[in-house]
């Protein structure tokens, strides 16, 4: 471990205002895309099941 105290770690040598936003933005972007991708898959799965039911009715 490089750090000696939690305060030092959070202060990032005076660059906390640049280091922490970098990590926060990256986390938000990756998390957001992950959730959006999952939601998109769920919608597609529902739509696919619905299409199969519709077609089943007409065949």
């Amino acid at each position, binding site marked *: *471990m*490089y*750090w000696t105290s939690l305060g030092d*770690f959070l202060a*990032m*040598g*005076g*660059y906390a205002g*640049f*280091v922490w*936003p*970098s*990590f926060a*933005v*990256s986390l938000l*972007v*990756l998390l957001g*895309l*992950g959730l*959006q*991708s*999952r939601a*998109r*898959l769920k*919608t*597609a*799965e529902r*739509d*696919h099941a*619905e*299409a*199969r039911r*519709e*077609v089943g009715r*007409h*065949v």
Partner: protein
Amino acid sequence: MHALANPARFMRLMTAIRPWAALVAVAGLCGGLAWGLLFSPPDYQQGETVRIMYIHVPAAWMGMSIYFAMAVASAAALIWRHPVAELVAKASAPVGAAFTLICLVTGALWGKPMWGTWWVWDARLTSMLILFFLYLGYIALWEAFDDPSRAGRAAAILALVGAVNLPVIKFSVDWWNTLHQPASVMTMEGPKIDPSILWPLVVTAVGAHGYYLWMLCLRVRAEILSRQARILRFSAATDRRAG
């Protein structure tokens, strides 16, 4: 490669890979970034801001290599009409755009304390911004047509034309005078940085590749299912008309 042109087989492969890709993504990203934040030393010039590099550099690599993958898949889609390649390209674009955005934002957050400015219009930064706009343009083109086959062709052509930007990004730091430092990891002579910095970078980069693969598994499956639903409805409608 030919066997993968079959969407059903491709979907089975994607489903099998998915949990492993997720594991590599979470372990690699958390492990690499924790390493970079907690255990690696500060840089003698950059101080603690060097920790931003553990995100910035892998994000830049991903932005470029995902674009490369997208261009190759687009070529396969245009030349061989490979049905899955087109969907792989389409599914890649948002992931590449996300990494490029992360690269741009973290670059600005590093540039402010180190260069004294959030942004300069130099070759490396500008070509990276163009990469981001190429991703957005590609995504917009897919949405701009009602007919998916026409949208796919237009988007694939844009992806291929935009690929000229990749060598421009890579060599921008050698061709022009720029504030951005030259390559230090991917050089002909091998990495020029200390192992204490290189290893967290490598682990994060492996995690980022896992994340890309994970998102591909989700998004390509969604694309294939939507396309199948469309085909089902279309053939049912023509059957009704014929009957």
